């Protein structure tokens, strides 16, 4: 009896639910097709005559915790200028990937994604399905600033053009000469301790090892607490040293991929090369002798900062020390350049491409006015826009002194306990992100602090000539990258860490190489080669 009742109720509910669902699907698809081109001015401000409301899905970096982009100086100012009113739908970086994928998966799209770090795979997948608009013509017509940059630096166009010929995004760029920013975390060494040890700044991997060993013995922090090398992740050290061992010779954007030194028409998967092996052997030696922080694989950012403030580190790879650890500890550090390796390699390979992120702004098919949106973004590729984004409004957040833009006093020397960053976050939103183009002339932060600029100057002559942006792939290639590619990269990363800690003996190297080959190395390499060939010919 009960069963029958259940069945009855079940059927009724199910049918009505289906009905509700199918009803919901029908509406809404054919709306909003009114020609938007009318309500946009081709040049100058405002961008639109009638106020335009847009909803942006945006990543809100942690430093902006306490501000609201819907009511903040910079965006209010830009709204008044452009007549485009952006409703910011803000997501914290911890939940970014999840929220972004849920927004895409549910089909409930915002008008645009801003700083949402969409991967190339997603750009193509949703772009070719029509969820994201192809921007080629729009950029051509409505983005003069970006177009000019693309003409001067062809890499930009290559980085955002997919094999189907379309561009689905507007990129976040770093001015090519703004090296200090492209370096991000860079190596530092404690100069006070060097002096105490009567040593010079290490220039070879051997000297670096000697220094670390000497620091460990000297133990300036006392009680054996000194950490000769520390960092927030082991990958920083690996990338820095790759220049001393001759791998990753075109930058870190494409995982484990660089150019074959013997044949410059071929790419190479360097994680199986002898050079890479030599590097792991060196790092393994440092780790086993206790010269690398034994907790580097699990350390949290906060713990690292605490250790650094206690002055425990002999060397590290990090951002500006004075800015982050204060004058007393920070000023003890001097910068390191690339070390010369045992086989004579000495270049600095750990720096980002000038295309920082291909997906600064992505326009969805629901956007009522793509032309105005492209113009809205394009402003930030010009000097005025860069100034607005990174410096704010003259007279309110910055002053011009001797032709140079400098933050106002209330930001540089904020009242009470407020820090410089907190003061910035009250009026501006650039902290933790790069948007449009970032230029040395219109930027004031850790990367333009004297210590960091000096480091960049020292490193500059050793920097590799060409840094690849992330390549773009076809859908078929993405399929291979997501299965074979993911598996191999995961295996390589795990084994790298095991080789470094000694959990896995380097005698097992042949086995490791063999495993990677069995996992489908050849197939993966073909994909990369095809992507590289396209990159070269574009």
């Amino acid at each position, binding site marked *: *009896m009960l069963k*029958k*009742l*259940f069945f009855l*109720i*079940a059927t009724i*509910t*199910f049918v009505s*639910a289906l009905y509700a669902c199918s009803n919901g*699907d029908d509406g809404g698809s054919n709306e909003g097709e009114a020609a938007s081109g009318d309500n946009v001015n081709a040049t100058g401000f405002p961008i639109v005559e009638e106020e335009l409301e847009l909803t942006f899905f945006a990543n809100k970096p942690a430093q902006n915790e306490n501000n609201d982009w819907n009511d903040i100086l910079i965006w209010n100012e830009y709204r008044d200028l452009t007549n485009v009113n952006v409703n910011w739908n803000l997501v914290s970086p911890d939940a970014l*990937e*999840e929220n972004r*994928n849920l927004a*895409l*998966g*549910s*089909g409930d799209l915002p008008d645009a994604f801003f700083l949402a770090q969409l991967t190339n*795979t*997603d750009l193509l*997948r*949703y772009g070719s*399905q*029509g*969820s994201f608009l192809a921007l080629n013509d729009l950029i051509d017509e409505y983005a003069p600033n970006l177009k000019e940059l693309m003409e001067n630096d062809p890499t930009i166009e290559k980085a955002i053009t997919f094999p189907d010929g379309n561009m689905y995004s507007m990129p976040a760029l770093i001015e090519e000469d703004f090296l200090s920013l492209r370096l991000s975390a860079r190596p530092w060494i404690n100069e006070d301790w060097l002096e105490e040890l009567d040593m010079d700044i290490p220039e070879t991997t051997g000297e670096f090892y000697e220094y670390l060993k000497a620091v460990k013995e000297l133990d300036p922090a006392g009680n054996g*607490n000194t*950490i000769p090398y520390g960092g927030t992740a082991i990958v920083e050290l690996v990338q820095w040293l790759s220049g001393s061992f001759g791998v990753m010779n075109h930058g870190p954007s494409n995982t484990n991929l660089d150019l074959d030194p013997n044949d410059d028409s071929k790419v190479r998967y360097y994680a199986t090369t002898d050079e890479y092996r030599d590097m792991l052997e060196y790092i393994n030696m440092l780790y086993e002798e206790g010269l690398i*922080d*034994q*907790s580097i*694989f*699990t350390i*949290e950012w906060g*713990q690292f900062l605490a250790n650094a403030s206690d002055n425990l580190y002999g060397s590290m790879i990090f951002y500006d020390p004075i800015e982050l650890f204060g004058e007393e500890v920070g000023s003890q550090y001097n910068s390191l350049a690339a070390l010369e390796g045992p086989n004579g390699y000495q270049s600095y390979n750990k720096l980002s491409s000038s295309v920082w992120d291909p997906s600064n702004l992505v326009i969805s098919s629901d956007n009522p006015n793509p032309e105005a949106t492209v113009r809205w973004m394009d402003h930030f590729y010009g000097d005025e826009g860069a100034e607005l984004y990174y410096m704010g409004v003259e007279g309110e957040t910055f002053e011009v002194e001797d032709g140079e833009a400098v933050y106002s006093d209330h930001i540089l020397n904020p009242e009470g306990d407020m820090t410089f960053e907190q003061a910035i976050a009250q009026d501006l939103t650039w902290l933790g992100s790069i948007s449009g183009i970032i230029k040395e002339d219109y930027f004031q932060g850790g990367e333009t602090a004297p210590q960091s600029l000096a480091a960049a100057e020292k490193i500059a002559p050793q920097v590799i000539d060409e840094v690849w942006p992330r390549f773009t792939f076809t859908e078929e290639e993405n399929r291979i990258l*997501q*299965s074979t590619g*993911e*598996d191999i990269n*995961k*295996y390589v*990363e*795990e084994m*790298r*860490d*095991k080789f470094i*800690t000694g*959990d896995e003996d380097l005698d097992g190297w042949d086995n490791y190489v063999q495993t990677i080959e069995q*996992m489908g190395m050849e197939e993966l390499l073909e994909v990369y080669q095809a992507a590289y060939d396209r990159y070269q010919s574009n």
Partner: protein
Amino acid sequence: MAKDQSIQKGRGATIKKNFLRNWQLYLFMMPVFLYFFIFHYIPMYGVQIAFKDYYATLGIWGSQWVGFEHFERFFSSYYFWRLLKNTIILNLYMLVLFPLPIILALAFNELRNGAFKKWTQTLTYAPHFISVVVVVGMLVAFLDPNTGLINHLLRLLGMDTIPFLTSPDWFRHIFVWSGQWQTLGWSTIIYLAALAGVNPELHEAAKVDGATRVQRILRINIPSIMPTIVILFILNIGNFMQIGFEKVLLMQNTLNSETSDVIQTFVYQTGILEGQYSFAAAVGLFESAINIVLLITVNQIARKVSENSLW
């Protein structure tokens, strides 16, 4: 024939009568029923994306069928066996510890000193209320190779430090035992309730007959709560393969992933982080399939052996 029909008719009439008489009870049942139906049965139609190439723009119904492609990819993946092995071992490990709360509950039940009993019970319940994130934070703080308390002690005793957090050998122990620490006391509650229902006359009679305390526990308490134990065991099996995956994820790093990589973290990574919905759905479906087979098997066995079962 005629007899059959009259029975049918008679049944129909009884159902109707029964319903009319007890309609309030059915009404009470309705919200729960609807909840399960709307939130647990209707969404099941989405399972089909495991057999499709899901695109948000095309929708669940509109995406293309690809058959078992995603399953094949998962089964032939380099990590398939590792994921399966880790998931099963970790669950078996937890399952082996299933008797612990029973033992603790039996012990609590023997305590006569009221104040002491309350104190110990509260002490064992307390960790249950700590969030997983905090527990993992505590683990990191205690087990860190440089600053951790445990390694400090080891160093004081002149022993080598142990990289607890990055060692694949330690991961399972830390995961399972920290879990026990957190849930042990809480899991005793249901057994204590069952023990409270044991007929005191049985104990009195046994005492008169000269039974010792251990004998009384073995012969009276355990048989009395056996039905509860069996049901809880079956329910536990129902959750087999579904480990508290947030905790695994929080404790995971490249060095211990050899033992910490489980199906659920894999689904999270490929499904939510990489956005391969169809593939992740296929993997999740595979996991659920294992689950249901286990549940039915154990239920069947329990019914045969102990006459207690879920259905």
